[in-house]
């Protein structure tokens, strides 16, 4: 049982890295980036391409994934999302257009990866080999430790940074009230670019972790991760980091239990059911106070 909990924790950490970016983009900028999953897969794939069968150290591989992911996301922001944001139309319609455009971007990214891999799973070559430790009867690998530390550590760090730093406060101001924030001289463009880069970077990180952890990834796996992330974000409350962590832990646990004790083919349904339940019953999120920004419902 404890082993399962550990697996769930690792899974949750990867989910957290992936979902944090999406929840920030949505909470701060109103961007539902449906290409986020493709960016995760695409980042891992580019590391595979760049690596060219060279065995690179884990640190390099992770850094590359981070940069590519951030770069892709930034590109989307500058080339697509920003243009839509600045066009005429009401906010809700623009949000939908952003989501639809991101779907187009997702198709492109997935197609590139599928083409390159002939639609077969691919792996990221790395010189890293895992060491498994035995801690009180529990088998835990250093990779698992790294993933957990990365996921939870970055969440904690991000949360504190948002609270304490000037830029962090600016971000929270934009999330709460974009108009007033711009009146106060907060540079929305730079903020948006930074947020999207960070979001993509974390997705890239999650992607490399996932591929190294699982030994390989399917080019089409971005889509299912998307609904997973959405379930987590919505359950935790859009824009809430703590909520995302709690949501990720919950969903990862439920999925792991389903996989362990049943045939597992129902596992994907957990995310979908969570989405439907949360949105219809408590759209501001299960773990949030009712003061979380919820006007997008």
């Amino acid at each position, binding site marked *: 049982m404890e082993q399962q909990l550990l697996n769930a924790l690792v899974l949750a950490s990867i989910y957290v890295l992936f979902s944090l970016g999406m929840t920030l983009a949505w909470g701060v900028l109103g961007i539902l980036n449906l290409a986020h999953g493709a960016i995760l897969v695409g980042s891992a794939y580019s590391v595979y391409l760049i690596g060219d069968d060279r065995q690179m150290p884990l640190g390099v591989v992770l850094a590359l994934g981070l940069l590519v992911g951030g770069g892709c996301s930034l590109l989307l922001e500058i080339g697509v999302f920003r243009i839509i944001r600045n066009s005429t139309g009401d906010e809700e319609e623009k949000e939908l257009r952003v989501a639809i455009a991101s779907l187009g971007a997702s198709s492109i990214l997935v197609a590139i990866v599928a083409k390159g891999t002939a639609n077969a799973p691919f792996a990221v070559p790395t010189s890293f080999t895992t060491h498994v430790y035995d801690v009180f009867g529990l088998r835990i690998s250093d990779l698992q430790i790294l993933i957990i530390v990365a996921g939870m550590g970055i969440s904690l760090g991000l949360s504190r940074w948002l609270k304490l730093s000037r830029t962090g406060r600016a971000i929270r101001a934009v999330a709460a009230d974009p108009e007033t924030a711009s009146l106060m001289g907060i540079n929305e463009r730079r903020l948006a670019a930074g947020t999207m880069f960070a979001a993509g970077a974390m997705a890239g990180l999650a992607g490399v972790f996932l591929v190294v952890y699982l030994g390989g990834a399917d080019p089409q796996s971005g889509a299912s991760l998307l*609904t997973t992330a959405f379930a987590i974000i919505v359950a935790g409350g859009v824009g809430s980091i703590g909520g995302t962590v709690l949501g990720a832990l919950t969903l990862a646990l439920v999925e792991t239990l389903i996989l362990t004790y049943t045939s597992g083919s129902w596992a994907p349904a957990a995310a979908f059911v969570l989405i*439907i339940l949360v949105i219809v019953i408590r759209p501001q999120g299960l773990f949030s106070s009712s003061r979380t920004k919820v006007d997008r*419902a």
Partner: protein
Amino acid sequence: MIDWYASNTTLIQNCMIAILLALSVQVVMRIGVLSLAGIGFYGLSEYLTANLVIRDVVPAEVAILASLVVCGIGAFVLSLFLGRVRGLYLAMVTLAFVLILNVVAINGGKWTGGANGLFGVPFAVTTAHIVVVCLIGILVVWATERGAIGRACEALRTDELLATSMGIEVRKYHRANLVLSGLLGGAAGGLNVLNLGAVGPFDAGFGLAVTTLTMVIVGGRRSWLGAVIGAVLITWLPTVLSFLEGEMRNIASGALVIVMATLVPDGLLGLLTSQIRRLRAAVRRPSGRSTTKEVDDDTQLVSADR
């Protein structure tokens, strides 16, 4: 002509089914709602119709009608369930609905044939059937674009508060359009399975949702004509782009979606109508009618304390 028809029959059939699917998405998008529920009901109708006909419960025509009724009721229940949910949330709930049905289909045992799906469905539907149903679908959507209903839909798309103040029950119109969306999807599903003879758990999944959305975005979300244009274009695109290999086509359509959603949100139809409008205005202007605002020479000081 006959030769062309014979060698393109499948494409024509797919096109008609695609039109129905595109209409199911367009019919809610025109009031500002992004709902993929029509895709879900497409899949549901495929399985329901297949089961009814394979098990010889009822003849094919009755099977489709029964599926339609179930889809209509299902869409109505879904709309009640959704309540006040709008925007991105609604879009994702409907996506979740589609994906849940996929999972149910995989795990459905003998009712759905599991991961393999159902085979051996009689080919009970001809191209003529498909064309007729497609035309009926177009007719119904066209009818709801005219007159009072059309004006009400446009009003509640633009300004819900105003629509309400004019006596338009916003929720009622949302529900009605969602039901229409379910019926259109259901019709497409029933026809498709009786035409192809088989159904699989991923027929009505993320891929179909994206493709259908692409059709409406590219063709135009404002009117049935946009849905038709989009469906025709996207159905025939692979043929036109046959010099491009498989994945390149996805890249092309993805790029098309980005361009449309970013720069031409009303699609090709929107582009066309705005050009026509501009031409008309240019033709009218030389006749001397002024379009400049009149100068108000009575500025009211009282209004300054606004």
